[in-house]
């Protein structure tokens, strides 16, 4: 089980969810979770594939290949660049 948080405007494409996966079995990473989510929600998948989307696991910003364990919280954050 992974708690998945869609921050900011990504929340327009999906509610926060608890994804029922066995992280050890699928060798879960943010990239793998993104693929799973994109299969069910194409529009969300497009947003998550955009350049400079950040991912955080347990409130630490990590890379897309960072290992995720059962019980972790994974957050997707859209890019913010204006000013």
């Amino acid at each position, binding site marked *: 089980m992974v708690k998945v*948080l869609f*921050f*900011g*405007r990504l*929340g327009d494409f999906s509610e926060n969810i608890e994804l029922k996966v066995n992280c050890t079995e699928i060798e879960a990473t943010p990239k793998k979770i993104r693929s799973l989510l994109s299969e069910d929600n194409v529009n969300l998948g497009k947003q998550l594939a*955009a*350049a*400079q989307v*950040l991912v*955080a696991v347990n*409130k*630490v*910003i*990590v*890379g897309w290949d960072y290992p995720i364990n059962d019980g972790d919280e994974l*957050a997707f*954050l*859209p*890019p*913010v*660049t*204006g*000013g």
Partner: protein
Amino acid sequence: MPLNDDDFMRYSRHLLMDDIGESGQEKLINSRILIVGLGGLGCPVSTYLAGAGVGFLALCDPDRVDKTNLQRQVLFRSEDCGEFKVSCAKDRLKALNDSVNIEIYPRAVDTEILNYHYDLIIDCTDNLPARHVLNKQCSENKIPFVSAAAVGWEGQLIGFDFNNYSSPCFNCVINGQLQDPVMNCSNSGVVGPVLGVIGSLQATIAIRMLLGYFQQHGEMQRYDGKRGQWLTMTSMRDKACMVCSHEL
């Protein structure tokens, strides 16, 4: 530089605070800050820092005031349209606090501007390439760096105390080699007060850094104004970072 009679009156609300006081106010007065970008973030940042009595502000922005700026860039007036932002900003900030020395650069940030001495550089730009230029300068020269951004309802804030930490840096968190996102305020819009929230926090972090109260090197804060949510995250060093990995 000791405080004068006018300073005691003007900065009395700082002087009342034990953790600022005369010594803290003197630190602010003796500080030099470069603010890059005088848009939605740079307006509140420069206003609060001039009000706080930061002794020297360098303002850098190549743009002129446009009518579409007025919805959020609170230093400017309708009659400023067509004028350089930095010129208008200087007039307004001097009217607020004439004792602040203000240097203006109506052009994109360049090596000459960056090579002057600053105690702090504040990123109020609207694009990633400029943020990476500032990050590199600050990382290599151990200059504290406060970066922020906003678009739509969302804001981002991150501070790096390069005086005391060499890593992570902005490039560890947001890789400069990747494609620049296409969304910005010009093509996607932005809610004015979101810039005010984030810009005010940038100014707060700047004051904390100058006074020695900043302990969150590399911590990123995200604000979603539409849902009223905040998220605070730490960042990690990228061992392959092109900017700061050689520092270790």
